[in-house]
């Protein structure tokens, strides 16, 4: 059994710890009926002494097909940490594996409890045509009515999804924006915002990526303002402009609902 640490930013403080498990032939072990208990070690302090333990929960990356695990933990310090992954299979068998990794002092994205960066993001009012600001083939108009700066200035709670469906040509990509859209249906009075994380422009009648001189993709100004190192990224911000929850990568609908209900 081998662990895959999916979180791009493991940092001191409250952390959403995303991971997966495979066997040595790359076959996915992560499944809803495989329970995984986590044991954490502060390697810099005492490499083999348990610092804390946590259960994890399975979430679908692609509903009914593939998923991974999430645990909400809190690292007491930056430095070298280790985790022992204890998996229990439906037949009662157990397997265990340990991985060590680095935990940073801070994250580049806004920490939970800090003020959300105010930044202008594209809206339908400014663009006119949703196709010029969203690569979603079925854009939800409500997601493009308010910019991040406008929501903060108005004292509105909001959910922002930095997500591009442009690259999700198959069902194997995590349908993050679809998850957010489905949750939004139950919160008609809450502000939802979707922004494309990359610099894009309309060419040949469709929204396309703008590459830099060396051919790389470019983070949009609002993406840089929020310090994203990966996408998709979803944040929940309260009416005081404080980041209350943030989710990197795959998100389960009930995770988002829980964060919204806590506003």
């Amino acid at each position, binding site marked *: 059994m081998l662990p*895959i640490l999916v979180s791009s930013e493991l940092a001191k403080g409250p952390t959403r710890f995303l991971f997966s498990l495979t066997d040595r032939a790359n076959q996915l072990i992560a499944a809803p009926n495989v329970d995984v208990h986590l044991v954490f070690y502060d390697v810099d302090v005492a490499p083999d002494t348990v610092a804390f333990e946590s259960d994890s929960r399975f979430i679908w990356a692609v509903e009914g097909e593939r998923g991974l695990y999430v645990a909400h933990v809190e690292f007491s310090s930056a430095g070298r940490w280790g985790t022992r992954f204890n998996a229990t299979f439906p037949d009662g068998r157990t397997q265990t594996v340990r991985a060590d990794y680095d935990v940073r002092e801070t994250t580049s994205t806004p920490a939970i409890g800090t003020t959300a960066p105010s930044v202008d993001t594209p809206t339908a009012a400014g663009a006119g045509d949703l196709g010029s600001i969203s690569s979603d083939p079925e854009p939800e108009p409500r997601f493009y009515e308010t910019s991040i700066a406008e929501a903060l200035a108005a004292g509105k709670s909001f959910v922002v999804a930095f997500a591009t469906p442009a690259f999700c040509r198959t069902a194997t990509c995590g349908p993050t924006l679809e998850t957010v859209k489905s949750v939004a249906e139950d919160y008609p009075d809450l502000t939802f915002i979707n922004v494309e994380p990359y610099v894009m422009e309309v060419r040949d009648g469709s929204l396309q990526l703008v590459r830099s001189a060396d051919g790389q993709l470019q983070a949009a100004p609002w993406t840089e303002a929020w310090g994203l190192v990966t996408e998709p990224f979803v944040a929940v911000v309260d009416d005081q402009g404080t980041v209350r929850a943030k989710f990197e990568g795959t998100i389960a609908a009930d995770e988002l609902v829980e964060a919204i209900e806590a506003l």
Partner: protein
Amino acid sequence: MKRWALAILIVLAAVACAPADGTAIGIVTSIDSAGLGGVRGFILRTENGETLDFTIRGPVALDGDAFPPDHLREHMASAESIAVAYRTEGGLRVVVRLTDASAQDG
């Protein structure tokens, strides 16, 4: 021929269209990134357990079903196999094109 074997052949044929010295299929286990648009490399674990380092240097093809390096983490999250076409420069495996391996199996 089994379906998965046919799928792998299709993927290898697809990535072979890019000017590459080799191809590899596996799952992403680690990503080195300086930020969006700034993926510098990643580690791929192949089905036979081999661990391969890849470097991003210059443009990566985005034609057809290819996806950008920034999208690697989604595939890493679901432990979904990817196919990497690469060229060799100074002993480094430099990525030419990235595609979703298992998505071809449909």
